[in-house]
């Protein structure tokens, strides 16, 4: 049985029918990882023993009973490492507690399985900033899987995971999902508790599912959503039945096309894939509405000011005093801090800490941080106006398909621009999803996935899932498997 190629829903059906046990599911998945991961490098670690123990006591009648889920290495799971792909935590921190998303997953019967690679502290768009290893795109091992949740997306794409949790601060779920050909959903800010998610930028971070199908996305979102007394920013709003939103037609659904998101700098193959998707949606009965998000251009600047400002203080706690890497005996306290952090953090993390420290410094605070907050409000207003005219908005997820490993490492600004379509959703706190919408042809017969982004208003996940599901059902992009994960039929 090639069980690893199953979707989360397929696995659930088989488990409930008794075709296999949760233990067999975990063992089968582990075998696939053992076979494929040397080439993909999606996982940082796996604790098979604890996964099997949970599998043996799993109740398959629970919503996700007995289903292993890969976890981005930035979410705390009790007794597991949580390195954030950083040398500052690698081998020097075992989590003493569960993130609320994990507690909820466990309550739904799921089994946390393995820790996936990422850009260090979720800072990056290619997973090349991992302080531990480079993850390869299953569609072309010479290319990046996207980031920062590159490990989670690559694992799902390569059938090394049925589904995974990622985190999204400026596109870190959607962009790797797009570049690896899977479904990635960034929930509304406040939909999923951040307790136990190691913060990069607290006002932007959200945990969300990376899956093979829209239905899986709805199932996983269902399990992790909801209020949390440990996170004051997590809203006490009822969680609807997300799978109930699936299977509805698109008659009367208004899809907004923001002019600014189709302006320039989009790869022609990405553009034509997205245009074809628009055709499909129109043929399904959706109505296209052209509209404008006037503050799109300053969004990247606003994002890099707010995210780095928050990151500079969030990451202050990594000082080698209580946990994590600690430099050899230093002569004084400041030397201890300086050396511990110089040795522990990678270059991108340092760059962002310095940027964030600068924008908060007295004398610059108002000019940068305060002004960025004002523009953030304008961006939010752009979206509220847009959602008066449309139920969801549509854009490419990433302006280009996956680029080559090493291609942009020396040009951080170029890398930052890759987030152009995704960061606004985080700044506005709204929800968004990336769905596979075709392929771009690279040289020598290599094809690279392209993602379609749908953006919804705050707590509009149902609308997103409804449109994405209708599109998915009308196309067969999701069923395509990368060369590193041979197609079901061929197995």
């Amino acid at each position, binding site marked *: 049985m090639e069980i690893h190629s199953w979707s989360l829903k397929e696995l659930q059906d088989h488990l409930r029918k008794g075709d296999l046990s949760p233990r067999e599911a975990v063992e089968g998945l582990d075998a696939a990882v053992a076979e494929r991961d040397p080439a993909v490098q999606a996982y940082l670690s796996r604790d098979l023993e604890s996964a099997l123990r949970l599998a043996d006591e799993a109740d398959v009648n629970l919503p996700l009973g007995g289903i292993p889920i890969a976890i981005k290495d930035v*979410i*705390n799971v009790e007794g597991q490492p*949580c390195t*954030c792909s950083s040398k500052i*935590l690698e081998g020097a*921190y075992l*989590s*003493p*507690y569960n*993130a609320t998303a994990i507690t909820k997953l466990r309550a739904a019967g799921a089994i946390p399985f393995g820790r996936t690679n990422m850009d260090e502290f979720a800072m990056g768009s290619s997973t090349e900033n991992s302080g531990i290893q480079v993850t390869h795109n299953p569609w072309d091992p010479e290319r990046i899987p996207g980031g920062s949740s590159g490990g989670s997306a690559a694992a799902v794409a390569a059938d090394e995971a049925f589904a995974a949790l990622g985190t999204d601060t400026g596109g870190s779920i959607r962009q790797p999902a797009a570049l690896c050909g899977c479904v990635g959903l960034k929930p509304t800010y406040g939909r999923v508790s*951040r*307790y*136990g*998610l*190691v*913060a990069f*930028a*607290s*006002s932007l971070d959200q945990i969300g599912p990376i899956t093979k199908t829209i239905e899986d996305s709805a199932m996983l979102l269902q399990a992790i959503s909801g209020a949390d*007394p*440990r*996170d*004051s*920013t997590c809203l006490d709003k009822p969680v609807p039945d997300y799978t109930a939103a699936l299977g509805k037609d698109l008659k009367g659904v208004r899809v907004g096309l923001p002019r600014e998101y189709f302006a320039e700098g989009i790869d022609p193959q990405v553009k034509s894939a997205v245009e074809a998707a628009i055709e499909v949606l129109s043929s399904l009965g959706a109505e296209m509405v052209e509209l404008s998000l006037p503050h799109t251009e300053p969004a990247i600047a606003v994002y890099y000011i707010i995210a780095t*400002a*928050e990151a*500079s*203080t969030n990451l*202050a*706690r*990594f*000082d080698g*005093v*209580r*946990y994590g890497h600690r430099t050899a005996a230093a002569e004084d*306290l*400041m030397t201890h*801090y300086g050396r511990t952090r110089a040795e522990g953090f990678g270059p991108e993390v340092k760059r962002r800490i310095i940027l964030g*420290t600068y924008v*908060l*410094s*007295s004398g610059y*605070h108002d000019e940068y*941080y305060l002004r960025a907050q004002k523009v953030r409000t304008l961006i939010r207003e752009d979206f509220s106006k847009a959602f008066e005219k449309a139920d969801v908005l549509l854009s490419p997820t990433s302006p280009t398909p996956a680029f080559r490993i090493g291609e942009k490492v020396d040009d951080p600004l170029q890398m930052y621009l890759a987030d152009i379509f995704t960061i606004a959703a985080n700044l506005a706190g709204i929800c968004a999803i990336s769905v596979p919408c075709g392929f771009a042809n690279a040289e020598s017969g290599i094809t690279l996935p392209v993602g379609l982004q749908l953006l919804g208003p705050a707590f509009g996940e149902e609308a997103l899932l409804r449109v994405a599901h209708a599109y998915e059902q009308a196309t067969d992009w999701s069923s395509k498997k990368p060369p590193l994960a041979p197609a079901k039929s061929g197995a």
Partner: protein
Amino acid sequence: MPSYLVSIGLEVHTQINTRSKMFCACRAHYGEPPNSLTCPVCLGLPGALPVLNRGAIEKTILTGLMLGCEIPPLSKWDRKNYFYPDMPKNYQLSQFDLPLCEGGGVPLYDLAYPKDAQKDIAQPGKVVRLTRIHLEEDVAKSTHHQNDTTIDFNRAGTPLMEIVSEPELESPEETAAYLNSLRQILNYGGVSDADMEKGQLRCDVNVSVRPEGQDELGVKIELKNMNSVSAVRRALHYEIDRQITALEHGETLIQSTRRWDDDLGETQLMRTKEFAHDYRYLPDPDLLPVRTGALLEKVRPLVPELPHQKIARYESDFGITHYDASVIASDLDLSAYFEQAANTLLEREDLHLKSPAKRVANLIINDLLAALNESEKPITKCPLSAAALAELVTLIDGGKISGKQGKEVFAEMFASGRGAAEIVKEKGMEQVSDTGALETFITQAIDANPDVVQQVKDGNEKSINFLTGQVMKLSKGQANPQLVGQMLRDRLSN
């Protein structure tokens, strides 16, 4: 030589006696084994998030209301960034530009001044204005050893209230009065024990001097590390003298922070302004701003009677002196004791007591406080209940025993915890007020002293006292002297 004006301002940090810490469910308690009261939140573990403790916010608002502060409708939380091992996140959750309380003031009570300064209060009734009160989290406790430093995170994340005054205090004595008055008010509100010697209240003191006639304040120098009110007073005396001497010698003072060394009795330079931190305040994205409206309505009815209100009420309702009222009001437990005893007596109209509250106050101030002090007991551990004290007063004021005997009975009650009536009976102290028994003694005294009787009849009032003395002697001191005097007068006036 010009005379100098002194300006002192205080930043007081006081612990709030909540059950749990400011941002997590850990118990806020002292004296437990190191690092036993910790969790991912107060250890600053990766991913942990703070959640507000409503109780701490309510107690801060209560403090604000007691001190007449404005409570702005919106208050928020900010990260104050600096690296230090006692701070697990390397930022402190505090309040920067939207504190919970603004303005207000601390009234300086007469008895809050140091004893030797109470006779010479420069501005009786002075109220020192406050700038603001905000809430923040306390840091961990570092202990420095020879080769290393250990950190106990039990204190990390416990609620801490910062009360900032305007630089309106003009002497070390006023500063001491400010701290004592503030403590009294915090006690009244049940907000904090605010004992400096237990570290429940800590303060940074800013002091500057300037020649008389100069409007602009002098160079501000901050003093740290005073662990008692008297240390604050001593440090200020030292520092004011030092600054004046420096100015007299033509030196220029520079803005700086100095550490008080209590053993050497001097302040020492710690750092100058150049090394001042840039705290890079950031509104905390993990905590939502607080709307104070609903909290305010909840807290408003909890505002207690304040010390000056209590003193005024004692003067008017119980008829005791301002001084006695102030002494009793300086301690809430003592006040409760006093009121219980006094009210018990006031309800006993059948006894026709003249001013029982006054008698209670006298007994408390002259006898009870001394006895407590000597036995090192707080009023809450007093072996003598308020009801027992009231009983003693009924015996004295009802004429059963004399005031002098009362003192003796009091001492016995305090030592043994036994009731007044029992002691009086056992010692055979009961005054004879039985007129039948007295008549016999009076007849004996009159018969034995015809000359004196004649003098009384001639109008010599003093001679009554002689006869009374004779009756007392015959009764072995147990007759009620007032009653005897009255009966003698009645007999001899015919």
